[in-house]
């Protein structure tokens, strides 16, 4: 395209040619631009308008006065959050739930994919896959409904605890149980679906490597260790980095369905705190500040993760 340079004597001519160029581009691709109108209207309305509205984090938002009319508050809401008693709790819980998810939840689909890959019977492999993907499609409401019923004082989990010699208790009322319940049911729901991407990576490994290894007398463990795992290592590394980029991000849906005031101490995360403060207590500006803080941290972590991923193996998100 034509460049615009201020102070250049030919500036008028350049602006005209830039305008001509854009007009020509628009005419030539008229229908493509027309198609984009509703799509961009959607993004402006439901994504960029809220970003514009996020400025209420720096204001004392009053619905009657609107965004523009509400007075500025500077960083006061952020200061209130950082110096408040809940800051440490929600940040710690967010990180700990992610950390447990990283330690136990991240390797689970990799192990499943490796084991599936070693199954000799194709039919059995397909059965295991079909069954293990299923929980992914069950609504979070049904999953949480089952968790609540099973872990209730008279529920089946407590029946088993009693048979094994323990005592009954409402597990969702115990703060020390919340993370275990949250992470283990996450694994239950996600292990099969998460393995798909690794299975896809596994199909890219050249079978000749295995044939050569067998000739060299490598057993199954050695084949997995020396061929399969290195073969899917790039996929593992990218997903691991992305996962670490999500360390400050826990969705609120499952949390707000499972937690209660008894377990806030271990269960309340940043997103659930934003939801409660904003939509139940109507502290719009304060909770927007907390949410904005979280979004900025998440975005920075993601940029960092992407930068590391780029340096490591020339794979990046964009």
């Amino acid at each position: 395209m034509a460049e615009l340079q201020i102070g250049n004597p030919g500036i008028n001519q350049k602006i005209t040619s830039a305008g001509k160029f854009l007009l020509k581009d628009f005419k030539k691709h008229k229908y493509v631009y027309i198609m984009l109108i509703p799509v961009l209207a959607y993004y402006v309305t439901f994504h960029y308008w809220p970003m514009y509205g996020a400025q209420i984090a720096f204001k004392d938002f009053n619905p009657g006065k609107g965004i523009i009319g509400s007075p500025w508050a500077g960083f006061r809401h952020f200061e209130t959050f950082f110096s408040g008693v809940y800051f440490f709790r929600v940040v710690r819980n967010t990180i700990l739930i992610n950390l447990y998810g990283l330690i136990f939840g991240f390797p689970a689909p990799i192990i499943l994919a490796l084991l599936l890959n070693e199954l000799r019977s194709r039919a059995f492999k397909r059965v295991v896959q079909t069954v293990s993907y299923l929980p992914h499609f069950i609504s979070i409401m049904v999953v949480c409904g089952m968790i609540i019923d099973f872990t209730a004082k008279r529920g089946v989990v407590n029946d088993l605890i009693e048979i094994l010699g323990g005592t009954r208790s409402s597990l969702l009322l115990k703060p020390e149980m919340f993370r275990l319940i949250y992470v283990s049911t996450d694994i239950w729901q996600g292990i099969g679906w998460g393995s798909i991407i690794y299975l896809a990576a596994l199909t890219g490994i050249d079978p000749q490597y295995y044939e050569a290894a067998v000739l060299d007398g490598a057993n199954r463990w050695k084949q997995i260790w020396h061929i399969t795992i290195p073969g899917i290592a790039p996929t593992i590394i990218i997903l691991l980095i992305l996962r670490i980029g999500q360390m400050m991000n826990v969705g609120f849906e499952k949390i707000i369905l499972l937690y209660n005031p008894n377990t806030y101490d271990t269960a309340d995360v940043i997103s659930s705190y934003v939801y409660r403060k904003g939509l139940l207590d109507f502290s719009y500006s304060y909770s927007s500040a907390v949410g904005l803080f979280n979004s900025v941290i998440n975005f920075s972590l993601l940029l960092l993760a992407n930068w590391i991923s780029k340096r490591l193996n020339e794979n990046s998100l964009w």
Partner: protein
Amino acid sequence: MVVKRKIGDYVFDTINIILMCLLIIVTLYPFIYVTFASLSNPSAMIAHNGLLFAPLGFEMVSYRMVFKNPMILTGYANTLVYVIAGTFINLFLTTLGAYALSRKGYYWKNFFMFVIVFTMFFGGGLIPFYLVVKTLGLTDNMLALILPPAISTYNLIIMRTSFAAIPDSMEESAKIDGANDFIILYKIIVPLSMPVIAVMILFYGVYHWNAWFNAMIFLRNRNLYPLQLVLREILIASSTDSMTTGVGGLDKEPVGETVKYATIMVATLPILFVYPFLQKYFVKGVMIGAIKG
């Protein structure tokens, strides 16, 4: 190539098969338990301790109770509207966007691409979003569940990747015949893209079937509730209330427990029935997405 299998191989295979069988049991047993419990006699179920390997008796009383609740049928009907109308709008907008972004050589393409992809990584947050939907007057309106999730950027990218893979030569001749982009999209791209369109229908359809949060924050009128929100009242709200007051919700009414399980069955059976047939399409969608990611 025939290689003699060693003892170690047999041990490995056996352990592997046992582990996989355990996974199947752990995944399926909760559903089996719910099925058996929903068919059981309510008082027998109360007295029972431990796992179920068959229904305790065989009674439909719990299911009758479920359908006595008018909200279940209302929720079902509303969810059907949300799934059909929502998925239709999703498909329309996603197809337009995916086609436009898969074209080459127009000036603003990279800018628009950035504008769209950026929203995957950064957003204004829950409260500003809530205020926008409120400002638009969509509270207590079915559109509140249809318009805000009208495009999933992730799905848009999947579809764009798939459209971009169609060879240019297919459209060249149509262009020479004077076809514009709308005609190319409708007559050439869409018929060639039925597999990815199927994936989109499934992804969006399941999204609408399972969605509840927008409904919870934007709907006050119970006649507009989708099924998942009705489920929330039956499965979650009742028990959290009783949990926090310290009284076991299930102790209060003997029929409650089996009715809850029957409710879960009623809400899950449609997914369980269609799932085996649609599973391969879902997997295909993840594969297309994985290539890009």
